[in-house]
C-alpha cells in the first residue's frame, strides 16, 4: 500500500505559538503523508497539537520550519494559483456539526456554493442533479432535506451534509477533526462508515483526528500518536495498538474506557505518580527514532 504517491506530505514541520520564553511548541518536527484511499489517524490528549497539525495541513497556519509538499511540489514555490488549487483539493470536516453549517441557509444553498465555486461547468438543472446525487451518496433523501435548515436536522445528518460539501468541492484530501465526538453513539458509527466508504470508493485521502483510540482503530490504516507537539509513535494502526512501545501510547491505551476491565480490578489502576512521570518524560524532546517493526516506529528522548 505504500506505493501510492502521497497527495500531501509534511516534512519536519514545526509550529510554535507565543513569543520569547513562553513559546508553546504546538507542533515539532512533524512528518507524515496522506495517500489516496488511505486514512491516517492522529491521536493524542487534548492540547497535544492535533488541531495545529490539521490547520497546518489546511494552510491556515504557516509552518515555522519544514515544508509541505502537494503532489510532490513545494507549495511555497507554486504561488497563488497553486494555493488556490490546493485549497480546493483539501477540505475539512469540523467537530461541531452545528456550528459548521450556517444556520441561516438551507441545505440546498450550502451545497450550491461549493459547486458554483469548484465546478464551474455545471449549469441549471445539472446543479440540482449534482446536489441530489451528493445527498444520496451520503445516504440522505434529497427530497426531504434540500429545503431544510441545519437546525431541522440531527447531528448525524448535519455531519453528512458537511461531508457532502467537501465532496461537492471535489476534495481529494479530507481532514476530519474529531468529526464524531459531538454525536450520539448511535449515529457516530454511521458517519464513520461513511468516511470509510468514501475512502474506498472515491479514493480520497483522509486525516482523521481523535482522542478516541477505538474509533481510530476502526477507520484508520495508519496511526500517529501525538504528545506535547511531537509524534511519539506511528505506524500501522493494528501493530501500534497491539504492541504500543512509547510509554505515553501505553498510558493512553490503558486509560481508554474498557468494559472488560472493571475499576474494582486493582491491576487496572493507574498510578498517579507513574502517570506524572510519563508526562514529564514525554514532554522532553523525543528525537531518537526507533523502528520497532515493519511500519511501526517510535521515538525516545536522546
Amino acid at each position, binding site marked *: 500500500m505504500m506505493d501510492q504517491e502521497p497527495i500531501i506530505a509534511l516534512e519536519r514541520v514545526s509550529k510554535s505559538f507565543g513569543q520569547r520564553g513562553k513559546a508553546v511548541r504546538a507542533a515539532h518536527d512533524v512528518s507524515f503523508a496522506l495517500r489516496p484511499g488511505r486514512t491516517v489517524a492522529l491521536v493524542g*490528549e*487534548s492540547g497535544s497539537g492535533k488541531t495545529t497539525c490539521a490547520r497546518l495541513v489546511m494552510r491556515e497556519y504557516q509552518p515555522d520550519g519544514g515544508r509541505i509538499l502537494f503532489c510532490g511540489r513545494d507549495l511555497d514555490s507554486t504561488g497563488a494559483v497553486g494555493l488556490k488549487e490546493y485549497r480546493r483539493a483539501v477540505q475539512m470536516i469540523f467537530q461541531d456539526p452545528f456550528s459548521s453549517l450556517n444556520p441561516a441557509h438551507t441545505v440546498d444553498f450550502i451545497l450550491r456554493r461549493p459547486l458554483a465555486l469548484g465546478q464551474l461547468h455545471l449549469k441549471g438543472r445539472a446543479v440540482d442533479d449534482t446536489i441530489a446525487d451528493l445527498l444520496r451518496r451520503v445516504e440522505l433523501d434529497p427530497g426531504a432535506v434540500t429545503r431544510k435548515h441545519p437546525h431541522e436536522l440531527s447531528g448525524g445528518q448535519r455531519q453528512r451534509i458537511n461531508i457532502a460539501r467537501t465532496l461537492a468541492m471535489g476534495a481529494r484530501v479530507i481532514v476530519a477533526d474529531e468529526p464524531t465526538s459531538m454525536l*450520539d*453513539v*448511535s*449515529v*457516530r*458509527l*454511521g458517519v*464513520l*462508515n461513511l468516511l*470509510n466508504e468514501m475512502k474506498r470508493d472515491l479514493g480520497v485521502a483522509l486525516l482523521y483526528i481523535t*482522542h*478516541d*483510540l*477505538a*474509533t481510530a*482503530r*476502526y477507520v484508520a490504516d495508519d496511526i500517529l500518536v501525538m504528545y506535547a507537539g511531537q509524534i511519539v509513535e506511528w505506524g500501522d494502526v493494528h501493530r501500534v*495498538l497491539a504492541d504500543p512501545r512509547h510509554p505515553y501510547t501505553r*498510558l*493512553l*491505551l*490503558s*486509560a*481508554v*474506557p*474498557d*468494559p*472488560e*476491565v*472493571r*475499576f474494582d480490578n486493582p491491576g487496572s*489502576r*493507574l498510578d*498517579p505518580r507513574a*502517570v506524572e512521570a510519563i508526562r514529564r518524560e514525554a514532554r522532553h524532546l523525543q528525537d531518537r527514532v526507533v523502528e520497532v517493526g515493519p511500519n511501526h516506529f517510535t521515538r525516545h528522548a536522546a
Partner: protein
Amino acid sequence: MTVSPLLSVQNLTIDYIGAQSDFRAVDDVSFDISPGEVFGLAGESGCGKSTIAYAINRLHKPPALIRQGRIFFGGQDVLDLDDRALREFRWHKVAMVFQSAMNSLNPVLRVEAQFHDLLKRHRRYTKAQSRERAAEMLRLVDIPPERMRDYPHQFSGGMRQRIVIAICMALDPKLVVMDEPTTALDVVVQREILQRIDELRRSRGFSVLFITHDLGLMVQFCDRIGIMLRGKLVEQGTAEQIYHRPQHDYTKQLWASFPSLHGDPIKLERASG
C-alpha cells in the same frame, strides 16, 4: 436484599411545558439506589438523564413540571419538603457534580469562598473553620490547599473538576449525583478523576448516581446500570448483565455501535437511535 434503598425514585414523570403542547422528558421512571452503590444512567443525548438528576434535588425551574411520581430519600419524599427543609436537604444529603463542572464554579469568587458559603449555611462554620475544612477536602483530591485563595479561572479544567468534587465531599453527603462529570476532559484525566471518585466512595461510603453516554466507562465504574430511551427507563441491571447479557433491543444496538479496542474491526451495524 433487606437493606432499604437510600434513594428510591418511583414512577417519576416530568414534562416541559410548551406554549401549546408539552414535552415529556421523563416518563414513568422508577429505580432504587442502595447505600454505597454506584448506579449508572446511560442513554442518548436528550433522553432525560439530566432532568432526573435535577429532580432529585428539586432544582427545576419553570417550565419543568413534575406530573407524578415520588422520590424517597431515606424514607422521606423529597417532593414534600418545604423550602427550608429543602435547603437543609440539598448538598447535605445529596451533592451534585454538573455536566460541565468546568463552569459550575462562580468565576468571581475565590475557591475558599465557595467552600465557606456552603459550610456557613449548613454548619455555621467561621471563616477559619471553613478554611480548615476546605484544605482537608482539597488534599483529598490532590490539590495543594494553598491554592484555595485562587480564582477558578486560574485552574485547569481537570483541577476545577476535582475542586467541585472536593466541595461535594465537604458535607459528607449520602449521595453524589454526577452528571457527565468528565465529558470535557481527555481520557487520561478522566481516568484519574474517576479513580479518585471511586477511592473516595469506598472510603467514605456514599452512593453515586453516575450519568454518562459512554457505556464502556459506565460498565467499568458502576455497580448497576439503567438504560434510558426517550424518557423511559428501558432496562436495568448489574453492570455485568448489561454488558454481557443485554435484554432490550436498544441496549444491544448500543453495544453494537461501539467500536471496541479488542476483537475484529468488522463493519458494525448502526443502532436505530
